[in-house]
C-alpha cells in the first residue's frame, strides 16, 4: 500500500496566540481550534471518525473532544508522543489510518497554557522520554532543552566554523515574517546586533535563539483524498511523510554524531515517497525550538551539506524573497510555541494561497518538519492539488 496522496489536509484552525489566555483551559483552547478546523473543512463535528493527539504534554485526551464536540462514531483514537515531532508524526498516522480504510476524517488538536501554566523545565520532568537524562544529567545541572541542545550547537561551531551571527540570521528573518502575520506574539523588528546583545541563556544559545512560551491552540483535519475533492477549500495533499529517530534517542550526550538528527534518516524516505527533491520545495516550515535546530535540519533535509548550514542561511536566504522561504508565520521563535502545529497550519495556508502578507507567490510544493524529544524528526511534504 502506498501512502502518498491518499490523504489531504482539508481544514485548519487556530486560536489567538497570547501570553495569557485569561484562565481558559487547554481543553477550551483546543475545542475552539478544532471547531474552526472542522468548519474550515466544510464538514460537521459528527463527521469526525478519527482522532490523533500529538501533544507532548497536553492534559487533554481524545475522550474530552468526543464529549464536547459530540462525536458519535469515533473509529480510531491514538497519540504520537514525540514531543515537538508529534504534530507531523500525527499527520502520517492519520494518513495511514485513512489509507487503510479505518476512517475518513481525522482531527488533530494541540493546545496549551504554555506560558501561564507549567513551563518547559517543569513539563519535561513529567515526560517518560526524559527519564534517563533526568536521572543522570539533571543532578549535574542539565535541566532544560536549551542546555541539552546547546552542546550540539557548540560541536557544530567547533567542527564547521558556524557562528552565532549565522544563528542570528534565522532569528531575524523569522521575526520579519512574524511582523507580517497578524497572529504573532513578537512584532518588534529584530536586528543581528539585537540578537548579539541579548543575554546568554545556555552558551552558545542567546535569548533570541530560544523559542517562546505561549498560550493557544491549533488544529487540523486530515481527510481521505477522494473525499477532500468535494470539500470547501482547495485540496492540500499529503504527498510524502516520514519519521526518523536518532542514534541514542534518549541521551544526546551518548550520540555518536550529535550534529545529525533523526530527520536525516527520515528525509530521504519522505522525498522519495513524494517524488520530489529539496530543489522542488517552494516554502518550508521548519520546527524552530532553537535557531540552531533550524540550521541543523536544513542540512539533514538535504538543502545543503552537513556543516554548510551557516553559509546557507546568510544574507536573508530564508526570507520571502530568499532562496528558501522558511517559517513564513514567525515560527516558535516569534509567532508562538504551539509545538509545531502552527507550522502545519501555516504550510496549508501557504499552499492554498491564504497566507496573507507573507504569501510565497505561487507556492505549490511545501514541507513541514517536527523535532522533539532530544532528536526525533518528522517531515511532511504537501502539494496543492
Amino acid at each position, binding site marked *: 500500500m502506498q501512502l502518498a496522496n491518499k490523504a489531504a489536509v482539508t481544514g485548519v484552525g487556530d486560536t489567538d496566540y497570547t501570553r495569557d489566555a485569561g484562565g481558559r483551559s487547554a481543553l477550551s483552547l483546543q475545542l475552539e481550534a478544532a471547531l474552526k478546523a472542522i468548519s474550515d473543512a466544510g464538514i460537521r463535528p459528527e463527521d469526525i471518525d478519527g482522532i490523533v493527539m500529538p501533544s507532548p504534554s497536553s492534559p487533554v485526551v481524545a475522550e474530552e473532544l468526543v464529549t464536547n464536540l459530540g462525536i458519535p462514531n469515533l473509529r480510531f483514537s491514538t497519540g504520537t508522543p514525540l514531543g515537538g515531532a508529534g504534530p507531523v508524526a500525527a499527520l502520517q498516522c492519520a494518513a495511514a489510518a485513512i489509507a487503510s480504510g479505518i476512517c475518513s476524517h481525522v482531527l488533530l488538536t494541540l493546545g496549551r497554557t504554555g506560558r501561564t501554566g507549567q513551563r518547559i523545565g517543569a513539563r519535561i520532568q513529567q515526560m517518560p522520554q526524559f527519564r534517563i537524562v533526568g536521572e543522570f544529567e539533571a543532578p549535574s545541572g542539565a535541566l532544560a532543552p536549551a542546555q541539552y541542545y546547546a552542546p550540539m550547537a*557548540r560541536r557544530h561551531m567547533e567542527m564547521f566554523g558556524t557562528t552565532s551571527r549565522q544563528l542570528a540570521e534565522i532569528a531575524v528573518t523569522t521575526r520579519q515574517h512574524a511582523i507580517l502575520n497578524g497572529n504573532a506574539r513578537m512584532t518588534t523588528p529584530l536586528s543581528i546586533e539585537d540578537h548579539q546583545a541579548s543575554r546568554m541563556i545556555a*552558551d552558545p544559545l542567546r535569548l533570541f535563539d530560544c523559542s517562546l512560551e505561549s498560550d493557544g491552540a491549533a488544529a487540523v483535519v486530515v481527510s481521505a483524498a477522494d473525499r477532500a475533492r468535494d470539500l470547501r477549500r482547495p485540496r492540500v495533499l499529503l504527498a510524502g511523510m516520514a519519521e526518523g529517530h536518532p542514534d541514542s534517542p534518549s541521551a544526546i550526550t551518548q550520540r555518536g554524531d550529535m550534529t545529525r538528527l533523526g530527520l536525516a534518516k527520515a528525509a530521504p524516505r519522505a522525498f522519495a515517497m513524494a517524488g520530489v527533491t529539496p530543489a522542488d520545495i517552494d516554502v518550508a516550515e521548519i520546527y524552530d525550538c532553537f535557531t540552531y535546530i533550524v540550521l541543523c535540519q536544513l542540512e539533514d533535509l538535504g538543502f545543503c551539506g552537513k556543516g554548510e548550514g551557516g553559509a546557507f542561511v546568510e544574507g536573508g536566504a530564508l526570507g520571502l524573497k530568499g532562496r528558501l522561504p522558511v517559517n513564513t508565520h514567525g515560527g516558535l521563535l516569534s509567532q508562538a510555541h504551539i509545538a509545531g502545529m502552527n507550522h502545519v497550519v501555516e504550510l496549508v495556508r501557504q499552499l492554498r494561497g491564504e497566507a496573507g502578507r507573507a504569501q510565497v507567490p505561487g507556492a505549490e510544493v511545501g514541507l513541514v518538519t517536527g523535532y522533539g524529544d532530544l532528536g526525533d524528526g518528522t517531515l511532511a511534504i504537501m502539494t496543492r492539488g
Partner: protein
Amino acid sequence: MSQMMPGKPMPDPSPETQPYWDGLAQGRLMLQRCADCGRIRHYPQPMCAACHSMAADWIEASGEATVHSWTVAHHPFHAAFRAELPYVLVTADLPEGVRLLAQLRDAKAEALRPGLKLRIGFEDNGAGLTLPVLRPAIPT
C-alpha cells in the same frame, strides 16, 4: 507555601542503576559492561544493544577524558543552581568508548576545545550526592 529554596534534583535509582550511584559515593566512576560480549555502555541499561545479553558487570573508568563539546549555563532553570551560575557543563569522550556529562572545575569555557585532555574527579553536591566533575589534565 514555604519560601524554602527547592532542593537540587536528585536521582531516583533503580536496582539496575544503583551500582553507578554507589560507585560515585565511593569516588569511583563505574561503567556497565556486557558480561557476554564485553561491550561497555553508558548510561546503565538492562540489555546489551550489540548482543542482547542481559548479563552485565561493572568496571571502573580510567579517569581519563577529552572534550567533545560543552555549554555554559547562564539562565537559572532551577533555583537550586542559581548561586552557581555561570557553570560549564562538559560533554567528554572517555577512552572506554562512552561519554560523560559533568561540570567543569579549575578552568573557564574559553580554555576548552575539542580533544583537550581532562581528568575525572568527584564532588559532593551539597546534598549528600557525589557527582563526577572534570578538570583539565594539565592545569590551565
